[in-house]
């Protein structure tokens, strides 16, 4: 089960955005997801696609966290200031990408996270988000386009849309 840990964490972080200095909300959503999995395990069909199942649960848990956060007052001085482009270290990726993801509209953010980070097919994403395969594909493509516009050239180089997205 724990082999899916990093994927589920990426999804939680992408859905919830940076959310404080230490990803605490995403960490909570991650824990809730795996506790739900432990509870559900004995009743699950052995043929269940665990990654897809976990991503669906993570989606619901992350939305719960998102709503809980919206109800919490956030002191404005906690919002970090952007101090120009960030030079990422070799292993740090592009932290600004988390922020850029966090600023996307929900549907785009979810579609990008589930397709590009969790590898879900667009049909399943459409089902999860209550729209169609085509709508999910379009939302992901729009999201990627918006991300490319928002982050530095170093990061955009690593985001190359799939052929299927270009050809839509």
């Amino acid at each position: 089960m724990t082999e899916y840990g990093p994927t589920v964490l990426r999804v939680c972080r992408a859905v919830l955005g940076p959310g404080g200095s230490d990803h605490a909300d995403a960490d909570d959503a991650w824990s809730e997801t795996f506790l739900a999995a432990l509870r559900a395990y004995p009743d699950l069909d052995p043929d269940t696609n665990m990654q897809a199942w976990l991503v669906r649960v993570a989606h619901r848990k992350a939305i719960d966290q998102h709503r809980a956060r919206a109800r919490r007052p956030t002191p404005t001085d906690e919002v970090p200031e952007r101090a120009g482009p960030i030079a990422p270290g070799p292993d740090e990726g592009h932290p600004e990408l988390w922020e850029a993801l966090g600023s996307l509209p929900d549907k785009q953010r979810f579609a990008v996270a589930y397709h590009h980070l969790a590898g879900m097919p667009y049909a399943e994403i459409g089902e999860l988000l209550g729209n169609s395969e085509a709508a999910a594909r379009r939302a992901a493509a729009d999201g990627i386009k918006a991300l490319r516009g928002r982050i530095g050239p170093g990061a955009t180089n690593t985001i190359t849309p799939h052929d299927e997205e270009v050809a839509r």
Partner: protein
Amino acid sequence: MSENLLPAMPAITDDTMSALRNRLADTAQRDGLLDVAYRTLPSPIGELLLAATEQGLVRVGFAVEGQEVVLAELAERVSPRVLAAPKRLDPVAREIDEYFAGRRTRFDLPLDLRLASGFRREVILRLPDIGYGHTYTYAQMAAAAGSPKAVRAVGTACAQNPLPIVLPCHRVVRSDGSFGGYRGGPEAKHTLLTMEAA
């Protein structure tokens, strides 16, 4: 699946994952959702996989068996609620470390024998009767288990012992003096017997 976005995301470090997993294990333990806890332990005969239920140590796995294979077997035969949760295995790891350091000749641990049944269980429960540094032949072990003719069955019981090292099946050898087979490979059996004979 697109991997294009992954390299651009900040890396999720091993420290992050291990902190999350430890927290999950604690919560799962508290909520009664941790049926099988496991950890790995380096040893002179390769990395060991240690797994325990609430009742006790349920499996000692060798690297040659494949960690994923052993974990899948536990999920199938014990419970799918399997988590890396080192805390429950702390006393086990301590005793095995002491054994390999030459400071322990007997194990004193709660055991869960659910992966062995019938005659096999009878046999492996008698293994600790063979003292540290001593050996039995398969025939002697069969006699000790009350079935002198069941020599082959003793061999099977030892080969499928879910708790090697702790239940010392490595001390059962062939009547011609050769070591015989071992779940952890013949090299590992040789190492253990040589270490105990020193």
